[in-house]
């Protein structure tokens, strides 16, 4: 055991053979630490990824057995299919509609509940309460709130002169309804994260800014937001991934309709796989989704993160 624990400098000074033995030993030590995760990753991530790529070149039967090799034709079909292009576009719109307003709302709420006023705990609990709600429950409540004939929302809005909104039967409003549910679902969690980021800002910094004569707006722009940027970045990454993977609210509220207006990519994959039983085509779509997310993640980490101010 002793050999393993020598300080690192000795390692470099060792003869090649000894160094090699030493590295093997480290590997042996590391193995039991890594095997549980690695085994699960191989079984539930890498093997399926390979299988999905494989399936995307085949026609499959309802049991998911690859039956006919069709080459890249399913990819070809995707990019000429109006439905698929519509799904891509819908996904982009949905991600944009949920991520940007969602983060802004959470930021405003976090600023609002950050002040240590009396009774704030009560308001905080109310404001972060959506964190307790799951996709299925939120969407079930959504079905009632957006109901075409007995919607309390529509009724309430009519007092403000807003005409009958066909929440789930009009393509535009259906997208808004699904986005609202998604934003609401995330707002609790995001507010908690941002609130934590705000509280981590050293008070001395804010105080000295105040002494320098900076008003609230100035403090916000020059002190708070830069210092909050790592948290904002984290929230951004989490909510982009979350938005891309939104499924439950769409399946429960609109089933992709009306007129495919909420037929996002993930829903399209589900629908092709477990409704139309075209696992091959669904797999091809899944691979496209993978590539998009990969590019997006790289983009986020190379471009956006540069603007993040780490302490």
């Amino acid at each position, binding site marked *: 055991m002793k050999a393993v624990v020598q300080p690192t400098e000795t390692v470099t000074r060792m003869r090649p053979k000894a160094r090699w033995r030493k590295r093997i030993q480290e590997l042996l030590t590391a193995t039991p630490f890594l095997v549980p995760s690695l085994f699960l990753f191989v079984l539930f991530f890498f093997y399926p990824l390979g299988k999905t790529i494989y399936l995307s070149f085949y026609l499959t039967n309802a049991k998911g057995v690859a039956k006919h090799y069709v080459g890249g034709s399913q990819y070809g079909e995707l990019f000429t299919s109006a439905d698929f292009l519509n799904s891509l576009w819908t996904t982009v719109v949905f991600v944009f509609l949920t991520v940007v307003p969602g983060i802004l709302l959470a930021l405003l709420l976090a600023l609002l509940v950050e002040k240590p006023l009396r009774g704030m705990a009560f308001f905080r609990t109310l404001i972060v309460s959506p964190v307790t709600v799951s996709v299925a429950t939120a969407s079930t409540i959504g079905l009632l709130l957006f109901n075409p*004939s007995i919607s309390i929302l529509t009724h309430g809005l009519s007092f403000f002169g807003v005409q009958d909104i066909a929440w789930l039967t009009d393509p535009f409003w259906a997208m808004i309804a699904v986005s609202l549910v998604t934003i609401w679902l995330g707002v609790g969690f995001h507010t908690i994260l941002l609130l934590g980021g705000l509280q981590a800002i050293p008070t001395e910094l804010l105080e000295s800014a105040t002494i320098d004569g900076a008003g609230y707006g100035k403090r916000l722009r020059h002190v708070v937001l830069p210092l909050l940027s790592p948290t904002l970045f984290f929230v951004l990454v989490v909510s982009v991934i979350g938005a891309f993977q939104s499924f439950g609210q769409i399946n429960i509220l609109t089933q992709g309709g009306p007129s495919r207006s909420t037929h996002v990519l993930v829903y399209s994959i589900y629908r092709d796989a477990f409704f139309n039983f075209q696992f091959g085509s669904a797999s091809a779509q899944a691979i496209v989704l993978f590539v998009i997310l990969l590019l997006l993640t790289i983009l986020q980490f190379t471009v956006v993160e540069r603007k993040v101010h780490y302490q």
Partner: protein
Amino acid sequence: MKKVLLSGLLALTLGATTVLAGCSNSEEATTNENGVIEITLWHAMGGGPGKGLDAIVQAFNDSHDKIKVNSVYQGSYDDEFNKYKTAEGSDTAPAIMQVYDIGTRFMIDSEATVPVQKFVDADKYDMSDFEPNILNYYKMDGQLYSLPFNSSNPILYFNKTAFQEAGLDPNKPPKTWAEVEEYAQKLTKKGADGKPERYGMSMAIYGWFFEQYMANQGGLYANNGNGRKERATEAVFNKTEGTKFLDWWKKGVDAGYMGNFGRKTADTQAAFSAGKTAMFIDSTAVLRGLVDGAKDKFEVGTAELPKTEGAAGGVIIGGGSMWIMKDQPDAKQKAAWEFIKFVAEPKTQATWHTATGYFPIRTKAYEVQELKDFDAKYPQFQTAVSQLHNTKLTEATSGAVIGVFPEARATVETAIEDVLLGKKTTQQSLDDASKKVTDAIGKYNQLYKK
């Protein structure tokens, strides 16, 4: 071996959960120590019909001490059917499946079921009083594949109180599309701000209604005699019958006397119950719920499906039937057949009819006193029955059999939305949809055609 190794390793990682898994498996025991055979029934009956079916299962279990049926609600017909496709061949698959009419082709092609004809023949089961129009739907090449259980067809529901209010005779419901139009305009009530408080007429965007109206006008949905003479290879619903129906629908929606409450039929039912639409079309199966729900608000009237000028009329028999699964041991298959026979008994059918609105699958049920009394009290329940008896059996009214019917139905629903929302013309929309369905049929046939 690989499987064992894999599960072993996984189990190790799972640690404590495996212990729990042990107890969850116990309820899967096939025959318990008393020699009682347990079988699972999957169904898609929620709400009132769900309670009705549970009562039937209860009655069966009480009267059969060697068989126990466990019924599992699996969501909508689509959900249940799709779940079955994926669970097929696993040990959690059921012994009896209640499948919707449009799943028939796939069930046959999956070769996962035993045609009930086998049990009918072995048992010399007397089916002379079964409704021929219903049996016909589930018969292919002279074989009966499944036994119908819950049969329904669409009817027109109307609010009698609203009729009186609008100066219409509640005993003379509209019979034609033109009359529906005329009535609906009179029944539409606009508020002070000009937006409709009550629509005259509504239809959920449900592909079934489209299929019904194709048949009602004598039009085919798929080629080769709706897929009954030979396997269908093409969808043909983009003919005049289809466009005429959608044009009529769109005209009403555009003019503001027809409401659009989306795809879910329950939402249109809710609109009717809440007084937001005075007429609507839906399955006879929801009749009981509607009558009960409107009890202290208004009187519910029913009428046969209004047709267009010159149409032959008639409906396709919709609903579900019971299938027996092949992967089950003989004893379980026999138990399943016992249950299915129980379900088909005149008395059970009579109770089922009164609890829901589905009509009996055999004429003997009409001799049951319970049913006679009930129908005298609620004459609305006879509409669907007379509509069934008035239907002339043709290729169109027999209904299409295609393997990708659920997908086809969903495609048509999107096409209807495209039309109602003004995205496409009726012809364009139906052309696109039928092309899509034809493609899907092609892929399906490539996999299943022998």
